[in-house]
């Protein structure tokens, strides 16, 4: 009798306790803060606080997820009154600089540890980034735009809140390669959002 009672208690504990298994497929929506590097940082030095990202990940193995990313990051800076000189010509005024980065990437994530609530992972992405740069001065706008081949490296954490909802935090680096129109554009991005299992 005591043994049966003991087994019943153990079973009830097992049923009521949370168990963490493999990561299911999910859709994630995140807010992103980004920092330019290289040419992008030379053009706009300020942090971008305007960024959104949507990801889909499908589980192909217990700890490998593949999917795609769609995002939009807006970099902006008002350059104070200054003089710009080319050879014998000089132009003085206030500049408003904008750069839009729209990554469209196929991605693969490897979960380092999938048996706990907290799942660190590393990821890699490949695809294209649409870059649009605009400089406003006086009533004129100079615009450059380009589709650039891009790579992404990522490390992050998935925290499982319940059986279908995760909090996702990630640090990424995007590198969009040089084209005829624009030099290589690179930026770091920190994103935080939710991921819902499918």
């Amino acid at each position: 009798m005591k043994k049966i009672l003991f087994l019943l208690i153990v079973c009830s504990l097992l049923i009521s306790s949370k168990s963490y298994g493999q990561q299911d497929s999910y859709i994630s929506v995140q807010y992103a803060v980004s920092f330019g590097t290289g040419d992008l940082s030379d053009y706009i030095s300020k942090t971008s606080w305007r960024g959104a990202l949507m990801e889909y990940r499908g589980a192909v193995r217990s700890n490998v997820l593949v999917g795609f990313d769609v995002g939009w990051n807006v970099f902006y800076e008002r350059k104070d009154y200054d003089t710009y000189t080319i050879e014998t010509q000089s132009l003085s005024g206030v500049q408003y600089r904008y750069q839009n980065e729209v990554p469209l990437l196929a991605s693969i994530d490897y979960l380092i540890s999938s048996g706990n609530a907290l799942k660190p992972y590393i990821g890699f992405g490949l695809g294209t980034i649409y870059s649009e740069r605009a400089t406003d001065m006086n009533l004129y706008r100079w615009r450059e735009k380009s589709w650039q081949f891009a790579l992404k490296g990522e490390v992050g954490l998935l925290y499982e809140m319940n059986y279908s909802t995760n909090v996702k935090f990630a640090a990424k680096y995007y590198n969009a390669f040089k084209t005829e129109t624009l030099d290589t554009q690179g930026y770091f991005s920190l994103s935080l959002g939710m991921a819902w299992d499918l």
Partner: protein
Amino acid sequence: MKTKILLFLGMIVALGACYPGGADYYSDIDVTYTNYEEDFDFASLNTYSIPDSIVKVEGDLAEGEDPEFVKEPYNTQMLTRIRSNMDALGWTRVENPEEADLVLFPAAWTNTTIYYWYDYWCWYYPYYCGWGWGYPSVSSYTTGTLVMTLIADGEDYIDPTRVWTGAINGLLSGSYNSTRVNNAIDQAFTQSPYLKTN
């Protein structure tokens, strides 16, 4: 699934709503442009002449007609500012242009740009028509320009030669703002240190 996509689209709409704006003040649109003849030796000269009126370029002057001039007190204010800048650079003003090393010709004009949308879709999509409501939708803006040209003439020249050009341009606010005009004229000479004479 629909909820997540709607959430992402909602973030994109929010991003669009807080997309950084441009100029908030008329003075942020003001620009000053200068260009000069690189081989010209300004330092070896020291006299200049300037008319006592600024011609207003209307674009429809018929042969034989008298040109219009900038009205007072704006004419005197601008000429006084130009003269004080030339004096500060070491130039001596003479009345007779034939006796001067260089002659400074100022000219001014305004330009009005009108936008109009006559498509009936403006009733439904004001963004398509520059956010104007109704049909048709009309908006306009007027800019003012002052051009200062230094001309060299005399025995050494076959034709009068332009050796320096300074131009200031800005959005008209409806009332004459002497501070904006004076600052722009000063900037034209500040970014032209090569004009300094002995």
